[in-house]
């Protein structure tokens, strides 16, 4: 069971309180009806599946109930960092200890 730092609760909490919510930074167009078929496909269907660093959304559903973003390494399962919903994708990632 992973430990996940909730950026709203400001501490690490057990994974049982969380739910994964898919890839992060997939932006819904404010001009939805004007979206082309290709753009809609990219928005709704296409997801990256990297080996290594992934940006994803989690919800502290059985905690503060907030959605937030996380950077996780899919190889080590380790969380690199978490940050609040709406915040920009971090330009640089912190180094992770054990």
């Amino acid at each position: 069971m992973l430990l996940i730092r909730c950026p709203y609760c400001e501490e690490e909490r057990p994974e049982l309180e969380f739910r994964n919510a898919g890839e992060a930074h997939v932006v819904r167009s404010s001009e939805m009806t004007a979206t082309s078929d290709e753009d809609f496909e990219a928005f709704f269907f296409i997801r990256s599946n990297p080996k290594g660093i992934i940006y994803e959304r989690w919800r502290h559903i059985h905690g503060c109930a907030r959605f937030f973003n996380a950077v996780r390494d899919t190889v080590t399962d380790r969380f690199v960092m978490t940050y609040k919903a709406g915040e920009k994708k971090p330009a640089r990632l912190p180094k992770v200890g054990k």
Partner: protein
Amino acid sequence: MTASYRIPGAGRFSHAKAASFTFDGQSYAGVEGDTLASALLANGVHLTGRSFKYHRPRGILSAGAEEPNALVQIVRDAARTTPNVRATVQELYDGLTAHSQNRWPSLSFDVGAVNDMASPFFSAGFYYKTFMWPKAAWKNLYEPKIRAAAGLGVAPDQPDPDHYSSRFAHCDVLVLGGGAAGLAAALAAAESGVRVVIADEQAELGGALRFESGARIEGQDGWSWAQGVVARLKTMPNVRVLSRTTAFGYYAQNFIGLTERVSDHLAAPGRDLPRERLWQVRAKKVVLATGSIERHMVFTDNDRPGVMLASAARTYLNHYGVAVGKNVGIFTANDSAYAAALDLKAAGIAIAAIVDLRDNPAGELVDRARAAGIEIHDGRAVVRTGGRLRVSSMTVQRRTGGGERTIAVDALLMSAGWTPSVHLFSQSRGKVVFNDEVKRFLPGTYAQDCVSVGACNGTDGLAASIDEAYAAGTKAAREARGGAAAGKSEKPAKPKVEASEGWSRGMVGAAPGAGPGTTVKAFVDFQNDVTAKDIRQAVHEGMRSIEHVKRFTTNGMATDQGKTSNMHGLAIAADELGKTIPEVGLTTFRAPYTPVTFGAIVNHARGPLFEPTRRTAIHPWAERNGAVFEDVGQWKRAWYFPQAGEDMHKAVDRECVTVRKSAGLFDASTLGKIEVVGPDAAKFMELLYTNPWEKLEPGRCRYGIMLREDGFIYDDGVVGRLSADRFHVTTTTGGAPRVMNHMEDYLQTEFPHLNVWLTSTTEQWAVIAVQGPKSREIIAPLVEGIDMADEAMPHMSVREGKICGVPTRLFRMSFSGERGFEVNVPADYGEAVWEALWVEGQKHGACAYGTETMHVLRAEKGYIIVGQDTDGTVTPNDAGLDWAVGKKKTDFVGIRGLTRPDLVAKGRKQLVGLRTKDPKIVLEEGAQIVADPKQPIPMKMIGHVTSSYWSENCGRSIALALLAGGRDRMGETLHVPMPDGVIEVEVSGTVFFDETGGRLNG
């Protein structure tokens, strides 16, 4: 019976506390503190099982968790019978009943042993090669036969009456292993005040000090020192000492799974005691002090009962006071077996000879053995053993060949060296490194915040281990505190080691006589009957990676997970491949370290705690009034209310007719309810539902449809606007949690600028649907402050007021097509208000009805149920609900999805009604529809039935279906092929009853 191999004055248990037990029906005497293995050995019993494949007689190999041979069935009663219990781990209790496994008719005469004679046919990969063809025979013929012949124990066929518990725990320092190193680490950490948990799989902590008679610490013998430390740790409030507890899995971020065997050692466990307790521990720091495991020697017929690990014999003597034989031979490749020989000799047991593979062994232990007059044959090997059900001799030959000499023995102890237990380290994703000098894999790169100390870290010698462990415990505690000063000023003194044992080296691989080119049975893996020859054969047949060799031969794949066999298997494969050991690689260790019961994993989650069973506030009334319930997700919902003599169909027919004739009461409390509050509530609703909401007046309701972004229907429900900034949203019963999640997702991440909040009120309100022409008359007398006249409260409106003196949100809405209301009251009042409505209802001949009638009534009206008439690929248009999509809206979730080419294409499946030509035939839900029943199979299926019922109100069957181009097929005759004939149906509209809808105000 006297236990003839128990040595008076030896061992640590009072011989006065007797515990009698039976093994295969024979009664024996043991003492409290024994394991089943030590008690059997005390009675001279070595033969405890038959091997898995060849059914060869097998005895007790070890004195611990690594035991591959002595697997027995422990029987408390018919439901409490546990297979594959290691006799070396099972503690004895008075009255224990054990049976041997995998033999028929008896342990000493086993018909299956014919497999041993036929062994040339049972070589590695035999099953894969032989039973490949014909394919079908594997499942029906070969597998059942093989499984029956190659059995382990028998699983009980009754439910497990024991209970199991669970505990989450957190600590600063978790010490795994309670030997000298673990205790020293725990002590160092504990004295600084941090939270410490120390776990050990044995009944008593102490580890190798159980047998190391040469250890002296702090002026005491090693074992006594260990018990003193344990006693001290137990008095400390910041320390938890867990004995009989196995750390079976090391997971991400220092999360460790442990099972504590709470009552398996008790003759009569109390009812409040769980059998096992699962511990899930999160530790800031982990100290691995898991010790090492002695390896056997791989030589011909090394599996006879009486052939065992040297340290095991020492343990049985020094800890349990049991001699494993009276004339004992020893075959070793390192010094540790000499210590065993010396201890046994001192206890008066004859040592026939020490056969040492090394030339000119030297050192203190060797000198002491010589001084004690023990014969030492150096540079030699045991090349064979004699005996059948018990070893009777060993045959010795020079390592380089030459003449043989046979020496009579009644037990043969072996030691090839010690394998550090890096299992948990490996599970933690740490990388091991091979040390060629000492031929062992040791912890290399760490992946988690842990440290290995003592024997598992390759540290030889007690003093060095304690030094290392003590320093590690101190450091872990300091780091866990974040560098803060220790809680206690007095720094504990590091335990002083005055005398110690220690050895290293040894050998891996096959001993002389079992080397390349030989066809002898020299066992590498006892439990899976894998020989040195099998490993070589795997290499000859093309296996190159140890992962392939392992799977081809099954080496290390039995329940003992190769604790004794992995290194030998690897060395033999490497030798055969002409590669070094690290080049061939070590297989990854995976959880669990030792088998874990399902009971421990499931723990509390069984019976009523398997899953929450949710009941409504009105449930007790339904129960008292004979309702039959159905499961809807976690909810229990009243399905129908049969009266005397009624079956389900009769009850439902009556309920359906009664609702339309008079009225019915229905418990709709399980519907999801979400209160949407804030100045932007309407804006939010506009975005989440297809319908327009801005202009919905307070006090009015609307049927809303929610889509996913792809344009498919996600949920539906009636929404009431209570005020400009407050909506009372209802969802489907099953959809409540996911709709809430879906709404929160959009609110928090896509539309965070909106000033609106969502609160689940599903359980705040009990909901009583009163449907039928008499519904208003039933409710009105109980209501205060609400004008229920049609003009004042038209269909699809909501009012707040009081009913029976308590607050209500009264909805006028209908899911039956009749005039209808839904009475929302705070949940604790639900049952009493229902009872009051019931009394009023009785005056008008109303009935209570359940979900089945609700379904029929809505189907008569063509109202859909999301998840039944839709399946995640249905658009509002498909469902005939285009009218609910706001045409002028510029955005809502799903608006773009609806215009995808496939969603606007012709020929999509659309919701239609089906009328069977024979009105008495009720279609099966899920049945497929075809245009031409005479076409060849596979037929072209053009749709399927989604809902189908007998409608007493219509006097015929009715059905809804999703049908390709359905709305263009009105009046067409189609066919539903079923196993016993083809059913003719006519396509119709979806409304079967009161097409004009006049009854909503009737």
